[in-house]
């Protein structure tokens, strides 16, 4: 059976499963719609959190980034897992004890202020929408590459599926589809990794294969890879090129941002007890680590396979995957020395680095480019995002594995999209409608608003997927910096300091947000030509500036809190109350 028919079968089967779960787990009350009634098993919540958390970026992009950056990729590996330690120790159990429905709920009640609640609502909606646009795009890319439908049709199909289970089922529907989606995505990630690990190193566990000897050579994979990359004039795989300061700040921003992301925090509102929230964070990290410890192995295997298959290959005899991805515009080759052979070396092959295809074919049949050639010997451009999708084909794995990867990529994107859309819809129906503008509505009306808001949010997300605003890719990485600079300090101080008051929280959030936002906008949009280490504060890139924003937020909060009156008695009692489980 061809890979395409297989893909239709796998994707169709998993979609049928998600729809079945959606129909079985409809929500009848706001309590079910917002927090799945609060009785999700902690193990199930762990799996749901893992799927909620691992997005198209984790599944499709991360291994590709590590494959090309080597050691520097560690900032994502540590940043996106270390945040769970902060979440489990500093936030999740206490927010669960507080027992409300949304993150702005906590901010509004703890800081006895509608203004603080509204600032939180705006942050939630902004962070979640930038994030969800990327997911919808991921759905479209998988559809167009594997099912050969138009990207936009793919986005619409994805929207339809999310609509069904998010609007009907709310948190209850999302929780159980996420459990199913976790199983699909982790299976789809591990199977090809295991195959390739056995082929290269004879070790079935990719995490161990990464540190093993290459089959039949007696040389360690990583040493060989270091040798190959240096030989070809690239930087050695296990050596980083980012400065230590920048690595430190980016990793810290990703960690604090992870702990402050609303769609992850609300998952811990769904378990029955404080004790379950603690252990559930542990289960979630185990499930996440299955993918995160495999990703660096996939990255190293892919880099090795690409170098050994592509460098020195005659274009005329190129394998199918090479020309197919060239047709999609994600691989480009310029035959600088006119020998018909692909030379893969260090440096960018062209300027600008991203290919701009002319509507003509060259002498070997390759797509010609309008870009300027660069003076180095490199002739190849490979988009990082194709590594996970193309690797099974590069390694010549059977068709069903290729189909499985497509279904896994869709599961990763859809599960995260649904979690984000739910957070947006509850922020609107609960925090804006019920708590701010229409306090008189009853539970049934609030539920209706929640469904309408979810439906609208799905629609807007779809439009972002079809007409991606150019800045989305730039901004997604910064959602973390903004979450770190706004939510994390406010939530943490709200739990760990009884003295923390409304004035300090608002001043802190505004300082953290404006500073971080301003720095990013300045270097990314106003003066992109200055965006290099010489002009950065202390050598901190915009990606890592959220950490400094967070420190400023903490500093301003501490100062303002000492200069203004303490919070009212009953708020101090709330804080003392959330610190004990009973």
């Amino acid at each position, binding site marked *: 059976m061809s890979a395409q028919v297989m893909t239709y079968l796998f994707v169709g089967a998993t979609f049928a499963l998600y729809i079945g779960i959606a129909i079985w787990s409809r929500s009848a009350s706001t309590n079910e719609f917002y927090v799945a009634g*609060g009785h999700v098993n902690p193990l199930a919540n762990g799996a749901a959190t893992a799927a909620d958390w691992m997005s198209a970026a984790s599944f499709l992009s991360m291994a590709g980034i*590590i494959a090309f950056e080597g*050691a520097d*990729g*560690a900032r994502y*590996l*540590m940043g996106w*897992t*270390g945040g*769970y*330690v902060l979440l*489990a*120790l*500093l936030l999740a*159990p206490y927010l669960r004890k507080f*027992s409300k429905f949304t993150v702005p709920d906590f901010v509004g009640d703890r800081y006895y202020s509608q203004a603080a609640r509204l600032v939180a609502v705006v942050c939630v909606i902004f962070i979640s929408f930038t994030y969800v646009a990327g997911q919808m795009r991921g759905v479209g890319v998988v559809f167009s590459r594997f099912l050969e439908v138009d990207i936009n049709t793919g986005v619409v199909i994805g929207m339809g599926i999310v609509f069904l289970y998010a609007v009907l089922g709310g948190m209850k529907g999302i929780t159980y589809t996420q459990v199913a989606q976790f199983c699909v995505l982790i299976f789809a990630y591990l199977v090809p990794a295991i195959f390739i690990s056995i082929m290269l190193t004879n070790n079935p566990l990719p*995490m161990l294969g*990464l*540190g*093993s*000897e290459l089959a039949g050579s007696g040389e*360690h*994979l*990583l*040493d060989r890879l270091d040798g190959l990359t240096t030989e070809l004039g690239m930087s050695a795989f*296990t*050596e*980083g090129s980012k400065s*230590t300061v920048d*690595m*430190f700040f980016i*990793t*810290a921003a990703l*960690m604090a941002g992870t702990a402050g992301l609303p769609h992850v925090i609300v998952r811990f509102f769904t378990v*029955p*007890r*404080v*004790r379950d929230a*603690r*252990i559930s*964070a*542990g289960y979630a*990290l*185990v499930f996440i*680590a299955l993918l*995160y*410890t495999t990703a*660096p192995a996939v990255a190293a295997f892919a880099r090795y396979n690409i170098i050994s298959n592509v460098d020195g290959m005659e274009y005329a005899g190129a394998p199918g995957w090479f020309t197919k991805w060239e047709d999609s515009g994600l691989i480009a080759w310029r035959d600088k020395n006119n020998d018909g052979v692909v030379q893969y070396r260090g440096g960018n092959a062209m300027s600008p680095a991203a290919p701009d295809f002319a509507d003509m074919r060259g002498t070997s049949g390759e797509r010609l480019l309008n870009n300027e050639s660069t003076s180095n010997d490199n002739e190849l451009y490979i988009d990082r995002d194709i590594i996970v999708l193309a690797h099974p084909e590069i390694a010549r794995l059977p068709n069903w594995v290729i189909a499985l990867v497509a279904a896994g990529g869709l599961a990763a994107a859809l599960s995260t999209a649904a979690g984000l859309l739910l957070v947006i819809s509850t922020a609107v129906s609960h925090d804006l409608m019920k708590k701010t503008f229409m306090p008189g509505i009853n539970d049934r009306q609030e539920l209706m608003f929640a469904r309408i808001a979810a439906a609208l949010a799905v629609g807007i997300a779809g439009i972002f997927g079809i007409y991606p605003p150019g800045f989305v890719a730039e901004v997604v990485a910064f959602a973390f910096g903004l979450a770190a600079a706004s939510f994390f300090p406010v939530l943490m101080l709200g739990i760990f300091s009884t003295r923390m008051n409304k004035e300090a929280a608002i001043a802190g959030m505004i300082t953290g947000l404006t500073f971080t936002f301003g720095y990013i906008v300045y270097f990314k949009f106003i003066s992109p030509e200055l965006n290099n280490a010489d002009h950065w504060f202390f050598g901190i890139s915009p990606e890592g500036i959220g950490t400094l924003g967070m420190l400023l937020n903490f500093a301003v909060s501490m100062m303002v809190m000492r200069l203004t009156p303490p919070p009212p008695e009953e708020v101090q009692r709330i804080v*003392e109350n959330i*610190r*004990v*489980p*009973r």
Partner: protein
Amino acid sequence: MENDKNKAYWSANLRLMFTLLAVWFAVSFGCGILLVDYLDQFRFGGYKLGFWFSQQGSIYVFIALIFVYAWRMNRLDREFGVEEQDEDRS
């Protein structure tokens, strides 16, 4: 009386938390970032040691930290008599 007990519970919680966060910082920011070049001169099987910490080891330690925390906190809850009864969500 009740208040003193809760205070003691809270400071025991903080002690545990700071100990675990110190380990968290040491493996990730310490071994994985600040000391990575120094540690890379040692080997751990087929890995350079610093590279292993930053791409594998720190993640395993994070998991262990959360489970140790959950286990110790459940014990503290019982010691101070603040553990939850079943199903007390309103």
